[in-house]
């Protein structure tokens, strides 16, 4: 399994490249970042508390479980951020190098 979400409709949209953990992937116009990431992989981020990978939960901006990093170090909430051409996203805590949350 190399993707989590399955596209069932609106499959005729134009696509554009984004970069995920250094690899070029394809996103479709109108995708949220979350959908672009989870149609190209199974998870979004590391839990900061050592319990493994996470892939979001509520998709409506309430649970805050889908924050990822841009290559510039900015944090974005994947479910409410549109995917945009040229985006470069980091999904691993070690790569993001952010130390604001305690590590287990």
């Amino acid at each position, binding site marked *: *399994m190399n993707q*989590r*979400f*399955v*596209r*069932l*409709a*609106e*499959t005729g*949209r134009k696509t554009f490249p984004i970069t995920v953990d250094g690899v070029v992937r394809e996103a479709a*116009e*109108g*995708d*949220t970042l979350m*959908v672009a990431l*989870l*149609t190209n992989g*199974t*998870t*979004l981020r590391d*839990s900061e*508390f*050592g*319990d*493994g*990978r*996470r*892939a*979001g*939960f*509520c*998709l*409506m*901006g*309430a*649970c*805050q*479980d889908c*924050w990822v990093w841009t290559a510039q170090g900015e944090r974005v909430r994947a*479910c*409410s951020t*549109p995917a945009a051409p040229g985006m470069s996203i980091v999904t691993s805590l070690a790569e993001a190098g952010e130390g604001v949350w305690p590590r*287990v």
Partner: protein
Amino acid sequence: MAPRVVVIGAGPAGVRAAQACVEAGLRPTVIDEGRRDGGQIYRRQPEGFSRSYDTLYGTEAERAASLHTGFDALKRSIDYLPETLVWNISANAVHTVSGTRYGTLPFDALIVCSGATDRLMPVKGWHQAGTYSLGGAQVALKSQGCAIGSRIVMMGSGPLLYLVSAQYVKAGAQIAAVLDTSTFMQRIAALPRLLAIPAALKKGIALTRVLSKAGVPVYRGVQPIEIKGSPQTGVSGVEVALAGGKRIEFACDAVALGYHLRPETQLADLAGCRFIFDDAAQQWLAQIDSDGRSSVKGVYLAGDGARVRGADAAERSGRLAALAALQDHGVQAAGIGDMQRLRDELARFSRFAAGLREAFPWPAQFAAALPDETIVCRCEAITAGELRRVVRETGAQEANRAKAFSRVGMGRCQGRYCGHAGAEVIAAAACVPLASVGRLRGQAPVKPLPVALTEEAAQ
């Protein structure tokens, strides 16, 4: 001078509230977190998507279209702030943030239509990638045309369990099973109240037919045991105990989970509204009168954010709360003549909502049975055992005190998804009634804010 009206939320309640104000000649401000109006239930797909209203909203297509066109027609007569979060409320002003810009907006009347999110009971393994809320699963499909997985288990209880399952089946997704914790007998017992809105009852029955026609296995009276999987790759199956006690595992790569809804009450809390414990709903709700007036002068509450009664009721309670605000501020509005009819209709919806609670009860009893290793707080991976240890060792029996010691409720979701279950775990561990555990206090900002903010030019 005309009162300054601020409406929070552009779902069914917020749109109808704004409409009532415009009809009375006012220019309200509508603040909404969404990129587009509609709220969650009538969420609009992104521009450029092509599915029809029938495909997107099924039996509710006409209502959705009416709400969307109604709001489009209002746009020139209101100040509309999409993609804007109200992160705090102080005396007669709301504090907003949009992107990296923050602002302050004074009001004479505030109508809070903050909507609801899924009410969650943890199950062992629910923190693993591939577990979503039922509402989240619906958003994936409606707003993005995606299923949350290639083989999905729908689990929990409530109308959304059947609605989302039926929507997924219609869209061509593969459902491994629908696992309902409520029993058929509970549904029969709820019938007299459910008959308060016969059309809604009929729609509910039609959803179950969609599932049986598609051959989707539906089990009732189940007890969730564990969501199986691995920390790296996520969900691989769901184990439940069937009504007779037999254990069974369903292989899947995604789970949608939820037990009906809970109102988003943080903003009412920050506005200083009084809360009461509702025995029937087994949750704390902001006190409102029949029209939506809160305990704070000038603050009105409507829609599922005040009482979970569904979208049709939300349209009515939004309009009613706005009319109450207009009446209280001495605005002559023709619509004020509608108020008694709206109250009567809402009473029927309240009866129906009580029937739904009876048919699909919140499974409080599962909290005491959660194994110690079950994560209660997904944000910070804190287990039921840790919360119980805090109750046992520190004597904390109140929600905020137990939160201070355990951090359950202190994570980034601010207790939205662990608060109800956490209170049940505390109540069971301390052998006290749920009401005495209290409720987690709302904290500003109600959601994380960017660190670098710029002040908006004075309006």
